[in-house]
């Protein structure tokens, strides 16, 4: 399994990576881990919230559909959606090809920086995902 060591993770397999925001401060880029895309198989549809939507940590914010099943996506942090990856509506397989890069899902302006700090780091997530 590929791990983005700059990201943090939650046990439900979403990653959250801090990136500098154009407006100063930072935003959180959210997607699903390589382990998740691998176990889901071919992704054929991704449903994401519109920019402006306010999310609470742990809330379902979207759905990723593989060939065989639909799975909810859970917000790893609270905050406002700044952008959703529109490329995924044309080519959902980007999640399979490059989950940490062009297969990202949403950018969030976080309301509580402590939430990101509390997520699993790469090593802890790798251990967690390895149990499955």
């Amino acid at each position, binding site marked *: 399994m590929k791990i983005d060591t700059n990201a943090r993770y939650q046990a439900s397999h979403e990653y959250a990576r801090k990136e500098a925001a154009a407006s100063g401060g930072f935003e959180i880029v959210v997607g699903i881990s390589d382990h998740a895309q691998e176990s889901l198989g*071919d992704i054929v549809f991704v*449903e994401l919230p519109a920019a402006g939507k306010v999310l609470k940590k742990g809330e379902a914010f979207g*759905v990723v559909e593989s060939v065989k099943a639909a799975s909810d996506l859970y917000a790893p942090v609270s905050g406002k959606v700044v952008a959703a990856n529109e490329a995924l509506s044309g080519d959902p397989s980007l999640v*399979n090809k490059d989950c940490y890069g062009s297969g990202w899902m949403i950018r969030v302006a976080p309301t509580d920086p402590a939430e990101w700090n509390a997520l699993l780091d790469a090593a802890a997530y790798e251990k967690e995902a390895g149990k499955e």
Partner: protein
Amino acid sequence: MHSTALHDWHVAHGAKMAPFAGYDMPISYPTGAVEEHLICRRSVGLFDIDHMGQLVVSGPGADEFVSATVSAKVLDMKDWDARYSLLLDEKGLVLDDLFIYRLPGRWWIVINAGNRAVDVAWFNARAEAFPKSVFVEDRSDATYMIAVQGPRAIELMDLVSDRKVSELPRFTAGDLKIGGIPVLFGRTGYTGEDGGELFFPAAQAERLWSLLIERGGASGIETKPIGLAARDSLRFEAGMPLHGHEISASINPIEAGFKWACGLDKDFVGKAAVEAVIASGPARKLVGLEVEGGVPREGYEVADAAGMVVGKVVAGMFCPTVKKYAANAFVKPELAKAGTALKVLIRGAAKDALVVKRPLYVPAYRR
């Protein structure tokens, strides 16, 4: 849980395995279900379908018995002809769908794994009650079955076989040998592509499977194993039914569009019920829907433009060749016309759905 003789091969090649009809079957390989689908449409796909069952019907009364038991006209078939049929109960409901081969002196009938017990009991009970002597034998365990499908499948078969498979017309069968292995080859399939289904001794499964992959690769014919996920999307796109979905023991053939598989100029079990449905008109009809904004899956509700629930999805998925999200559903006949605007409820949200002509993908042999 049963497993096929190729089970270890699938696992060694990284397949995701899951139960299907009591068998632990490959759902997809590391290639991925979407790419597997596309490989079968452009070159050759190999399918382990050993879960399928086979019956042999023979004896002095066999011809009349098969004709009286299955829906399709069969007595006009010549030796080595193959034909699709339904197996109906007296109420005209679909117990299973069958592929029937007329071989010299016997009938070779391919049945679905999930219905094997029902079918065998049904054929046996009817054979015992039949006025003439009929023997029904379940050959499922001794017989291995793989499918070789795709636009280059026949080219591959010609390369590996001791006879010219390309000279067998579609919907016929022939005996041949591949690497010395005796094979009954039927030029049929379940993908919408040309190709065939191979029946041979179960002990030879891995040798024949590997031989096909190696000879395909060595001859520049892309030949890949295809899992059940892509088998489902291939058959769905090509408009073929899967028992338990488009047809089932609670669906009659007229609702599902299978009047063509009923030989109404002969007698067969369920004929009176089928004729009654034809006379009164079916209460619902199977339609194809193209859906925007999500994958329409089995069990999702279908609503009319006013939001009234009018039916249910029986199968739905992303279709890799036509690149559409599509469903099959039963709706009232007045809503079944192509162009009718309906909705499919996906996670509580009404998504636009348009009734379209089936199949979404016109099988190569019909073009």
